[in-house]
């Protein structure tokens, strides 16, 4: 009885203590953008900020997920970004996403600046394993070394340090088993707030594009870093084709509601959330049934805390026009493909097209697995319109190392207005040992997509990704070892069998019979 009381008291004290020392904030936001051809883009954003005092090291962690906290504190992580996706974002058709991601997975981490490079390498491997474990992924950076230390891209709007490690794993595709642990990091799970829409997970995987991301950042509040702040942003992008879901056949408009798409409605808000907003970007693209609580430059804002106090649920019905333009077009478009393939080598070409009327400076990051032996001498950057070779502003090339690290190429370029540049490089096929072929089905080997960072002085940098390519390596006939095993087993069976027979048999002497006796015995048989 006393124990129980003490326990309750401690919880109470805890609450009081926390409420005065720290202000954990959690905001959730859902942005809905209407895309051409009755596609709709849902962008969920869950942001939690936890001012962590230097003394407590995940003994009291409030609503910040401890599982993640353990990883970041153990491996001294300053920044961590993980994206998992299924499908391909169609930049040409859908414009710019709120957050870009390559197909498959991408992971990068910035470690504490006091760590040595050696320690960072080991921390990176271990933390990637821990992350894999946390999200049910199989990012195996030990056997499939894919890590590079990018100098000019990846981390946005910041001078990059040597402490970053970057890997993209195109064949690790987002799946249900990765979604569940991702949702569990949310303070209210999927029971309350806008995350209620994620309850019906099979519906989520009916989308044309599905991407989940997690971004962690450790921020110092002052120069001396006496107090820090943990920031965790979880986002989820979904693109649906409303026509395919509602099965309507209207040429002009399509009508759909949240319930149509997610088979669920938002009925309440997460109690710990400070702000729960739904933003609708309608800008002449359609109409909505529910009146917004606020209008922010043609963006309809729904404050769900206010709305759900009066109504039972939030399920706006939207009438979407079909022939609409993308609100934010990509400033630079990418197209990557394999050219000039023969038995020995092949070329990888990336077309970079500046869609704007202004000069744009970009950074091109290419990581090519070691088993494609890249020749830096074959690198050609060309203006496709004039067919003249271009001298890039900067080239950073770190050659690959067999079984250790991939080829890493960074090119800084300034694109002329409305120009098309191409980056071309040739590679040989490497040979893998027969046990180095992955156990999965052999689609071919993936060549990572290019990450293009579009530098901007005024606004934030923009990142876009190219297509993933696959290429077939010389593959041994894997059924041959099987045949050999069969053959060997047969030989062993025959050899061992006769030997076994020979050695375990008892031998005894028989007197040799002459012809007469034999004949006699023979006749004896007939007698019977």
């Amino acid at each position, binding site marked *: 009885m006393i124990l129980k009381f003490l326990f309750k008291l401690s919880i109470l004290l805890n609450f009081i203590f926390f409420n005065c020392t720290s202000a954990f904030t959690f905001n959730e936001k859902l942005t809905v953008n209407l895309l051409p*051809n009755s596609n709709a883009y849902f962008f969920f954003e869950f942001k939690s900020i936890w001012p962590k005092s230097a003394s407590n090291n995940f003994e009291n962690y409030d609503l910040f997920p401890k599982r993640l906290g353990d990883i970041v504190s153990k491996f001294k992580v300053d920044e961590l970004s993980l994206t998992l996706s*299924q*499908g*391909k974002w*169609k930049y040409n058709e859908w414009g710019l996403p709120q957050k870009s991601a390559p*197909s*498959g997975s991408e992971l990068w981490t910035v470690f504490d600046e006091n760590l040595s490079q050696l320690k960072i390498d080991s921390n990176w491997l271990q933390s990637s394993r821990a992350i894999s474990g946390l999200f049910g992924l199989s990012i195996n950076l030990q056997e499939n070394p894919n890590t590079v230390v990018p100098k000019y891209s990846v981390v946005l709007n910041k001078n990059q340090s040597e402490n970053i490690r970057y890997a993209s794993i*195109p064949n690790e*595709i987002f799946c249900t088993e990765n979604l569940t642990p991702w949702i569990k990091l949310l303070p209210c799970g999927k029971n309350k707030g806008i995350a209620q829409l994620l309850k019906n997970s099979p519906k989520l995987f*009916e*989308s*044309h*594009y599905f991407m989940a991301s997690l971004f962690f950042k450790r921020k110092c509040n002052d120069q001396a870093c006496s107090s820090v702040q943990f920031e965790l942003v979880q986002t989820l992008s979904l693109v649906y*084709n409303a026509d*395919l879901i509602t099965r309507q056949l209207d040429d002009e408009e399509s009508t759909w509601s949240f319930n149509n798409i997610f088979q669920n409605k938002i009925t309440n808000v997460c109690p710990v959330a400070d702000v729960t907003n739904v933003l609708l970007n309608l800008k002449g693209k359609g109409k909505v049934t529910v009146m917004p609580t606020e209008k922010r430059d043609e963006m309809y804002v729904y404050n769900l805390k206010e709305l759900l106090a009066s109504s039972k649920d939030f399920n706006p019905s939207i009438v979407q026009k079909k022939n609409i333009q993308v609100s934010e077009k990509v400033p630079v478009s990418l*197209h990557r*493909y*394999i*050219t*000039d*393939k023969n038995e020995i080598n092949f*070329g990888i*070409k990336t077309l970079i097209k500046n869609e704007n009327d202004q000069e744009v400076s970009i950074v091109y990051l290419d990581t090519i697995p070691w088993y494609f032996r890249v020749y830096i001498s074959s690198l050609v950057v060309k203006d*496709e319109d004039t067919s003249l070779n271009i001298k890039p502003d900067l080239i950073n090339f770190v050659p690959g190392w067999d079984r250790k690290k991939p080829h890493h190429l960074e090119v800084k370029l300034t694109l002329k207005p409305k120009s098309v540049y191409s980056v071309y490089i040739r590679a040989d096929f490497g040979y893998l040992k027969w046990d180095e072929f992955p156990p999965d*089905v*052999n*689609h*071919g080997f*993936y060549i990572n997509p290019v990450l293009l960072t579009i530098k901007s002085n005024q606004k934030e940098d923009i990142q876009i990704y190219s*297509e*993933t*390519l*696959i*290429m*077939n390596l010389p*593959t041994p006939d894997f059924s041959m070892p099987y045949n050999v095993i069969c053959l060997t087993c047969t030989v062993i069976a025959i050899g061992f069998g006769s030997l076994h027979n020979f050695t375990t048999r008892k031998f005894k002497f028989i007197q040799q019979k002459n012809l007469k006796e034999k004949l006699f015995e023979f006749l004896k048989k007939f007698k019977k």
Partner: protein
Amino acid sequence: MSLLNGDSDKKLKLYEPLEKFGPLLSLVGFIAGVVYFCLLPHQLLVHGTYISENALLPGLVSSDIFSTDAIFNFYDYLKNNYETNGGKNYNADLIHHIFSNQLKIESYTQSFNLSYPFYASQDENMVKTGKNVYGFGRAQRADGTESIVVSAPLFLTGKKNKQTPNLFGVAQLFILADLAKNRPYWAKDLIFVVTDMGQIGMQAWINSYFETESEFIKGENLKTRGGSIQAALNLEFKDINNINKLEMKLEGANGKLPNLDLFNTIIRICKSLQFQCSLESEISENNEYHYYYNKAPVQHIPGILNTINMMFKQSTGVPNSLNGYFINHRIEALTISGSRIASEKNSKRSHQKQNVLSTIRIIESTLRSVNNLLERFHQSFFFYLLSSSHHYISIGMYMPSFGLLILPVLIKVLTLWFSIFLKKDSNDEKSTELSSSIMLNLFKSIIPKFLVSGVFGIVLYFGTSYFLMFGKKMNLSAKDALINSYIAVMVNILGMPIILKTLSTRKEHRNETSEKLKKLLVLLSLTIFVGTVSLLNFSLSFFIAIFYSPISLLAVQDFSNKFLRLLQQIALVLSCPLIYFSFLYLAYLNFYENFNILRNYDQMFQLLSEKFYDFVLLSKISSIWTYDMINLFLVPIWSALWLISFN
């Protein structure tokens, strides 16, 4: 010359029986080769086809096409456009319009031009331009790393270069495009290609897709691409009203074939949909289709005919349809064409809709089977002959027949080799004397003859365009110029022995060893040539071996009888590659294309020269090596045989 120093006793032991039984062994081997080949399609040796790749799961999907209304609408729309305005409206722009505006899929056009490799005849322009259309049905939920191509030419070229529009073929692409757009199950992008100018347009598109340079076809750069192409289907349908059977064309460029699994999948799907599918112009005894049987019966004689038919088409190296050019890039591709059998119960008019539905369902089902693939086509066979749509002969089965056919030449080579280098006593003095005399002979008489033969090959190899240039100066049509110059070179070769005799002033010192050496070299080069070709294009090497193996042995025989010598020389004249391959082509026309040689005797030469020109033109444009290989190697070998027979 290590043989001379080796223990010649052992080799002598080998030599004696070889000399004794060699001719008999040769004869038996050759006959066995022919008999074995004819037995290949027999029940004892032939195997039934089977699906080797489990992931294909043919015929297990339920179709998403329920009615033919949409396809008839598209067909009528295309037909109206074709029939009004003299057919000018039926072009790439119309198809592009339907793709991008009606079906709302990503679609682009590609212009290309073909510059003729050599001076064309007066009525043809030097440069022809055309326009292709391609569209993408992107897989909605996949990352777009893999794709399947479905292509259809705008026009089909029939007999006598008659152009018929491929209306039904193109209409089917629209149905499939709609399916690709609206169904979530696609794991691979579908790429739709409609090509102008048939094979040329296809090559232009493929070259641009992979950015491979071609000397003669220049295509515009493609705007975008799909992932790596796993398979391609090409659709050719002349008439929507007259289809009750589908025929497959397999043969690709340079005799390469698509993976057998792809073909088997289609046949299996046809069986499950109870529709008749077969090889191109497949011969069957009872003309009844095999879907009535669980296990198709083996028919021996039709089997032989079908195999030879396939080999005829394979041996030219020139694909007879658009699918052939995908195979250059290791993309499994075949052509499905619609045809009609008169004596079939399904041929009634009322069955037309059912037949159209079955056709499109077969193609849909095939695409979805390929969509199931997790890995590239790698199982089953890449080297095979088909004796019927249900039976195949694998490389392991047909190769021995080739080996047996070339065996007589090999035996002769060995016999000659041993008799030159072994039969003499292994006395050191003598052997050095022998080798020096051989060397002398080599330079005096053997090398010049081979050089002369080689020069003819090189003249033909490089001279083709010059022949046509001269022809143009002399106001000959390209077809006539080519065949006439070719014949002229052949006549030159035939006349060479006389020229050589008049040129050599002194009496040639005839030596038995040098004679043997000459024969040895010719036969050896023939064996090496045919052996190499057999690995690249089995059918071509088979047709060469079956004829040139006995002919070469006849040519190296010394006849004292004048009459026999005359016969020998007549045989050698007839074995001129031009005559032999013309004969083969006529035999093909006679047996498989219902072209009666005897009745159409007067057209024969005209037809041959036309086909020869087409063949040379297409092999130059599409870089097919059959013509060059024959010019560079077979013609010199034949010429050397001819020269040798005159000693």
